[in-house]
């Protein structure tokens, strides 16, 4: 189909799998799960903008 040819990366081939003991996960799913863990860690580690505004609020300089 023409639109599939238009995709930059063609994923229409049987998946590669990550295998360990009885666990068999597709690479795509492992990537998704890995990204979720990385994003969660980044979300709690990266500083959130507006720290100066919040500090000013705490000091009572803003109303």
């Amino acid at each position, binding site marked *: 189909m023409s639109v599939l040819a238009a995709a930059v990366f063609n994923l229409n081939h049987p*998946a590669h799998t990550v295998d360990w003991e009885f666990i*068999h*996960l*597709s690479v795509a799913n492992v990537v998704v799960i890995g990204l979720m863990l990385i994003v969660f860690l980044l979300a709690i580690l990266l500083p959130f903008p507006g720290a100066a*505004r*919040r500090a000013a609020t705490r000091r009572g300089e803003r109303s």
Partner: protein
Amino acid sequence: MSFLRPTDDTRPWSGPYAPYDLIKELFIAIGVIALLAIVLTVLFSSPDDPPSTIAQWSRQQPINFTADATKELNGTSDTAEYGPPYNHNGEGQHAAFLYPQKWLGVSHPIDTTNDFVLGPLKTVTGDPALQSAVAAYEAAPEATKKAWGEAYVKPLEEYETASEEGKTPPSAVSADPATGAVTVKATGAGPVPTLMGGLLALAQSGGLDGDLLTSRQFFQTDYTKPLLFMADGGLLEKRAQEQHLLGEQWGMMNETGSYPGQAWLWLYALWYQVEPFKASENADILVMLVMGVLSLAFILIPFVPVVNRLPRWIPIYRLIWREHYRAGQSA
């Protein structure tokens, strides 16, 4: 307040509020997520493997089709012996004293002998030999039908087993690559070879797909019959194996091709790989019960001992609220 709630020292916030534009945040989020979805679409598109048809199955795997069609006629296929909601020929699964499959009854009756075989054959015109074979089969006593059916299916099952095990299949069964016809050397099969030959031809012509779908009415959106018939056979399973969609391949988490699938089904898929579920005939109901209990526990985490204490014991919260604690607002 419920007496089940654990000790909760959370006090209402009486501290400062900083400006925070929720509506702007919503629009930014929609923009970001929409952009991500579009970028992923442009990069990867989405899968759309075309569906299998009974015509394709009967042409690509004529022996497998014939073997399964015979079992449908005999009432020994997976669908025929499934039990509720399709028929009363099995009890279905159970867990201890729980038989919900049986209790909910037959809501979608399927009689494989008539619905999948004899009914469609009766619609074939211009083949008097076929119609008299149908009549002869219907007129015969049950014991005779059973004997005919078993005589015909036995070499076919031996062929299938040998193929699965990678051994040389018996020569009693063969398929003509030119015509797609299947020949089974079986004695005492009565009119069954004619019936199966007729059904194979009907399937290969594409007539069986439509026949199974519109047997009751012109407009139809219920694909149960053609799907169950095909699922009893080998084509869907062959394609599924190639796409890593089988149960033992953790298939319920997967998508066709190399696309991400349903990662959120990981725990559901996991149980089927471990005992006692793996080898159990009642694996489905057992896994569903376990997941039901766990889902209820998930909903009720605030009331679940130990689990509801984990956030305090493993202080990830110190990272999340580090600015708040540093500002000396811990009291």
